[in-house]
């Protein structure tokens, strides 16, 4: 069983972040939301592992204090 990796794992973090912002440049809120949804699905499929995905979902929910 693989654990959700929450330690730094992205090389060149600043450029990744800039790229993430850049792809949203000039998009409306609706277009951005759509892009985010596609991105989440692509990344989730890449991860694949159901347990890691569940861990990521609850980590994301927890961070904003909206855990159910």
């Amino acid at each position, binding site marked *: 069983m693989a654990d959700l990796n929450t330690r730094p794992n992205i090389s060149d973090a600043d450029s990744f972040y800039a790229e993430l912002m850049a792809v949203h440049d000039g998009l409306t809120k*609706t277009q951005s*939301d*759509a892009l*985010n*949804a*596609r991105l*989440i*699905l*692509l990344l989730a*499929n890449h991860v694949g592992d159901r347990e890691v995905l569940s861990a990521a979902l609850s980590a994301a929910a927890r961070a904003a204090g909206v855990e159910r």
Partner: protein
Amino acid sequence: MTKIFETPLYPYRRSADQDMLRPVRHPVVVIGAGPVGLAAAIDLACRDVPVVVLDDNDKVSFGSRAICFSKRTLEILDRLGCGERAVDKGVTWNLGRVFFDEREVFSFNLLPEEGHKRPAFINLQQYYLEQYLVERAREVAAQGKPLDLRGRNRVEAVGDHGDHVRLEIETPEGPYNIEADWLIACDGATSPMRRMMGLDFVGRVFEDNFLIADVVMEAEFPTERWFWFDPPFNRGQSALLHKQPDNVWRIDLQLGWDIDKEREKRPENVIPRIKQMLGEDAKFELEWVSIYTFQCRRMENFRHGRVLFAGDAAHQVSPFGARGANSGIQDTDNLCWKLALVLDGKAPESLIDSYNWERVYGADENILNSTRSTEFITPKSETSRAFRDAVLDLAEENAFARPLVNSGRLSVPCTYDEGPLNGPDATGLPARTRPGSAAADAPIGDGWLLDRLGEGFTLMAIDADIPDGVEDGGIAATPLRLSATDNPELAARYLGDASGAVYLMRPDQHIAARWTGFDDTAVAAALRRAAGRQ
């Protein structure tokens, strides 16, 4: 032309029961001659259990309603003796196409695996299925089986007397009463029985309306299931086009929540909608139009003493996935052999509780699947719509997204994992035929495995030795000896890595237990357990 659904098929006839001073007692009474009640009646009568069917109508279902019938239903109909007619008349299909906006995003094949007698699905109007069931019921009765179908007999009241039920029935010639040792309520989604007994029906209604139209047209469309998300002709909503026999096409158009149902149903409003979909020049005739709000709910218990609920009366699902009639017929498949054993004194009454366990399990699986489909088709928030559309946008180019597209997960029989009647499993045998599952068909000589399973229990040996008969407490398992040599399908479905196997099959063709070799005590114990005697 008079449509089949306008012709009385089982007109009212006076029954001798109506002239008796005291109510006549019957072993089993079925309320409702829909697909589920009729299947129950045929199954019981073929097991020599006397059965009376009461229906307040005398015709088959008005309009076509259910159109997709699954492989498992066809296999059950084969056992009941009318599978062939359904398949001969039905339209067999495998290919589904999914469209989003103006483009086709992908297509799927239901991949009918080789080596099954029946296809994954056929499309057939519900009225034809009911007609074949009524005719089969007649035929069974003519052969001397105890089946009595009474049209225009409306059940007005029931009284539960512990070991029997009393029914008050209204007919064109006035009321009469009968009694039943067991009552099976197959009286549909609005079940008057449920209401009369004050029982709940918990679940949810989806805030949406669907226009369902059957149109008759000569059209070039192929025999495929076409499903649209957000098409130009029905913006923001979904649509479905599916072929039935006699050039009848099923069209579903999602309409949304805030609509005037009566207005939308009028031909002058329906026809322009359909023209937007099929083209201005399309020539068609409306056969049947209706508007539905879909719901997913079930009764908490399908058994209440001597009253059993089956079909839509017990559970209701939205039609995406074709799980309504298909699961109702599986209810009766599960129930009738158990009732026959109990009435025969060979099994305890508690065997009937396993009907409740297994079919509630099945209903929950169906409700789960159909709720998920409905949520994909009708996203309930902006975010769920964004994800839904993201899946559809990705599906065209990215294979990974296609399994996420949910336009209905089509009905397959459920496996009663952990079911109360399941016996031991053996390691190394294929997962698909584990205890609790419906037996997978396979070719045997010139015929088929499922046709070789009898009305009772079967002890199937594949490249293993078994004795001529196994019996426990008056219940026998009929031996069936097979070899998987030169039969790769049988080997793959039942042996896996093992060199031989022994399977105990229930009368409803579900697998009770299995071993890699015969053991007298183990088989007898499994037989006892499968008959609820332990």
